[in-house]
């Protein structure tokens, strides 16, 4: 087939994912061999090159779902729904990576697998809400109705974020404060900062690759059902 648009998108996504995975291999090389080991946390600190990046990719994915969902309701362009679906699913994958790596660090450093503090609670609720989002999608047959209903949930999720954060913040917080994205200079050695930034870039690229592939798959499914 020469005019297989979905296939072209999927192949493009695979190329981007390939580059991202190569970058990720470099990140882990840097993390293990070219970044200092933190004195009090020891090797557990190496999570810094996985966990915040996965969290970033996941929250970015969910944020984009909110925006493309709003776009869908305003413009009713089917492609925006296909994109929302792709981004929500990829965000869920990164979300699971974030929620599984977090406790591995929390256990040795906090002495507890889990803490009910703002960031943990917020991300857990968002991941659960997007599991609900996926469940809702599978429970509706009509594609137009599915697009509208899931767009509503996508927008609602985005608005829920500040409320969960603020309410649990008023409750308590023990999560490490941002060490990089904050007003003053980064409170980390440059070798660590460099690896973290590189890791975040690699995860962002991985997101782009995954979403492109998933979008292509969504396109193909539409073609087949049409």
């Amino acid at each position: 087939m020469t005019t297989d648009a979905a296939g072209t998108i999927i192949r493009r996504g695979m190329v981007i994912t390939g580059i991202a995975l190569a970058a990720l291999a470099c990140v882990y090389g840097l993390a293990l061999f070219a970044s200092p080991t933190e004195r009090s946390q020891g090797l557990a600190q190496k999570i810094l090159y996985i966990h915040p990046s996965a969290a970033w990719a996941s929250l970015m994915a969910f944020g984009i779902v909110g925006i493309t969902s709003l776009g869908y309701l305003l413009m009713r362009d089917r492609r925006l729904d296909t994109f929302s679906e792709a981004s929500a699913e990829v965000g869920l994958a990164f979300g699971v990576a974030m929620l599984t790596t977090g406790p591995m660090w929390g256990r040795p450093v906090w002495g507890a697998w889990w803490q009910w503090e703002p960031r943990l609670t917020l991300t857990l609720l968002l991941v659960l809400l997007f599991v609900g989002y996926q469940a809702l999608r599978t429970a509706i047959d009509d594609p137009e109705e599915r697009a509208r209903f899931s767009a509503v949930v996508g927008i609602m999720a985005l608005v829920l974020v500040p409320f969960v954060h603020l309410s649990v913040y008023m409750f308590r917080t023990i999560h490490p404060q941002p060490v990089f994205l904050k007003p003053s200079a980064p409170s980390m050695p440059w070798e660590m900062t460099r690896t973290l930034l590189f890791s975040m870039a690699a995860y962002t690229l991985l997101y782009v690759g995954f979403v492109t592939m998933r979008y292509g798959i969504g396109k193909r499914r539409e073609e087949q059902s049409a």
Partner: protein
Amino acid sequence: MSPFRATLAIAAKDIRVELASRTAIATAVTFAVLVLVIFNFARDPAEVSLAILAPSVLWVTSAFAGIVTLNRSFAMERERGAMDGLLLAPVSRSAIYFGKYIANMAFVLVVNAVLLPLFILFFNVSLTGALGWIALLLLLATAGYVAIGTMLAAMTVRTRFSELMLPVLLLSFVVPPVLVGVQATTRLLGGRPLSEIVGWVRFLIVYDIVFLVLSWLLFPATMDE
């Protein structure tokens, strides 16, 4: 018909149907009492006193009973094919939303009004002076998540596993008001000064306004065609 009259007419219709059958409220109240009973036995009396558990029990029971009530919100329209009639009626989507919202609020508040005395009775709490504030907190908290639930129920009623879909989507939104409600209630029951709960009350008011407006704006998207 003016939008205001249409809103009231839709709310009155739901309330009349409920008064005729009393299914939703009776079921939700029974459910709430059963949850209270389970909570009482789901603790070691020697370890956890009723007073410590009381605020959580009140709020969790209230939220669960609210969701059970909301699940019925659009079920009648679906079961008897009345949704088309409602949509064909010469009333705006906003009138349908606010009519449904008022009716749902009425049901949930009745359930809460039955729940609160039973809670005081079963859990042996003395609310001297705090009763009015706790009632206000319950009103503010339910006003927010019922606004969201009314909009979500309009969608979930048309999906498979609708009775399960509503709680799965709604419970994430119920977390902030329940968290705030438990914190404020604990302080009130502990005899803390009112100044300590002002921040929580303000939070609930902002939550209510934001989600009522958002749900109202999104509601037409759940009703197309």
